[in-house]
């Protein structure tokens, strides 16, 4: 059953990545071209998922939407992991006020969920894909900082680290040689889970029209457009809904599967 998570996760994530890559070179139709004469068509040979209220081929729009998903996920998780992990390691290794300060600062950031930060940025400079990615990334920093700190504290209490420290190994070397290799798997698992959370946040933002502009195909925006036709063309809602849920599920399950795979202790308990 535990292997199942890993397999399902890998399959779903691979599909999203493949969709994004394919969409860079090929989509069946132009995902932005409005063709009023072909609006609201049922799925057919020509349009395998049908067309939306603008006459845009839904499958093409779904494919193109996966690009934004990958872009936002990679950048947001990148920002969070690259800034959060060293902060957490620092807070875990350095005793005294500077370590505490870092910890407290990340705690405060915890009161700002990604969406609220994104709304704040959108109010200040206008919403765009960039403000969305940056806001989601910054809001996720505390997650990585906390995890890295907890992992670091555990490593620092090990005898071999004490031995290295008493032999005069400098801090940075301890961090690189002992701390990082031990916490890297944890960070990897968290990156996968956070990727899923970033997709969720991006979908909500583009649904609200606060991040990626409406002209760029996103799954969240597709849902916004589809909501107007909920009563006469409910199938418009199904495709982007499935895309979001399966993509997020993929990254969440992949994270779970990796965690179980890496931590044999957990494999026994649950």
């Amino acid at each position: 059953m535990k292997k199942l998570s890993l397999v399902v996760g890998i399959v779903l994530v691979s599909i999203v990545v493949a969709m994004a890559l394919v969409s860079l070179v090929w989509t069946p139709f132009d995902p932005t071209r409005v063709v009023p004469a072909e609006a609201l068509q049922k799925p057919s040979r020509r349009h395998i998922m049908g067309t939306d209220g603008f006459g845009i081929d839904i499958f093409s729009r779904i494919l193109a939407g996966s690009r934004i998903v990958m872009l936002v996920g990679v950048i947001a998780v990148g920002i969070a992991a690259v800034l959060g992990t060293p902060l957490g390691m620092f807070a875990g290794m350095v005793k005294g006020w500077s370590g505490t300060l870092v910890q407290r600062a990340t705690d405060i950031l915890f009161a700002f969920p990604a969406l609220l930060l994104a709304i704040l940025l959108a109010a200040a400079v206008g919403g765009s894909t960039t403000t969305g990615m940056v806001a989601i990334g910054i809001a996720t920093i505390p997650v990585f900082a906390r995890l890295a700190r907890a992992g670091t504290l555990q490593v620092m209490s090990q005898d071999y680290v004490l031995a290295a420290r008493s032999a005069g190994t400098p801090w940075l070397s301890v961090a690189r040689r002992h701390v990082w290799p031990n916490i890297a798997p944890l960070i990897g698992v968290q990156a996968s889970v956070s990727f899923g959370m970033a997709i969720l946040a991006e979908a909500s933002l583009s649904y609200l029209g606060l991040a990626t502009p409406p002209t760029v195909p996103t799954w969240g925006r597709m849902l916004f457009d589809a909501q107007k036709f909920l009563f006469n063309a409910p199938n418009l809602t199904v495709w982007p809904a499935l895309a979001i849920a399966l993509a997020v599920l993929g990254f969440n399950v992949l994270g779970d599967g990796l965690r179980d795979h890496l931590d044999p202790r957990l494999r026994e308990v649950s």
Partner: protein
Amino acid sequence: MGRWRVIGSRLATFVVSLLAASLLIFLALNLLPGDVAQAILGTNADPDALAALREQLGLNRPAVVRYLDWLGHVLIGDFGDSALTGRSVLGLIAPKLAITGWLVTLGMAVAVLVAVPVGMYAAFARRRWSGFAVSALSQVGMSVPAFLAGILLVLLFSVHLQWFPANGYTSLSTDPVGWAEHMVLPVIALAIVQSSVLVRYVRSAFIEVLGEDYFRTARAVGWPVRAALLRHGLRNAGLSVVTVLGLQLATLFVGAIVVESVFAIPGLGTLLLNAVLQRDLVLVQGIVMVLVMLVLLINAIVDIAYVLLDPRLRSREDGDAA
């Protein structure tokens, strides 16, 4: 360390967090390009008129002075006036907060009522297929954003079954039945996501309890599983679950903002989104500050309640006194 010292340090943390959060909000809205005067007069405004309005609104003063001025007013409950309508920010927020407050409270309540028994079951049946199914289902629930859950609920209950209205809002005092009808779907939308997250915490908290000595002892002396779980498990796992509830609160408020937009509910979220679209920065600043204040305040209360409830901290204090 006694109980009161712990509570004191929690309160101090609360005050410092509040100050830091206010600074963050102020910096985001005041140091990034674009200001209130620009928002009022538009991007093509006459530079002289802009300068005059900035002077009038006090935007020419140094940022530090403006921050302290704003903070001072916030402390006495004055969040300023909306730049566009001229009405007091707090006066605009208060009636909307009541609506959003209901959504969040009911959403949290439903989520807890569902998640605690389901999570306990999932922990207890973790080696069976049924327990695995619950875990898998919670994974799926976590993968659906609240707004999407809302749209799917409308699709099922408004479009197909026609049980509940698809959107809109009526006030609780004038039409309680209509109010309840309009609240059902938004509350469920929020609760689906929230309970999925909670189920996982409840499950792992109870799995931990199942391995504890006191639980095994209770079982060994003949307590039935269910009684042992309720007597020992709920109290021990309850504390960690309450902490998670506090942490989830911020997410729930944000979820409510999006869900309000799905169901066209005129709450705080709708007010905030309109303020953002109209670039009414004073109003945005006020709403975000109120939201963050609420989240921090409730978390502080949860923390303090935790200290008061945790028998380990209590006995330690008694030990100090002895």
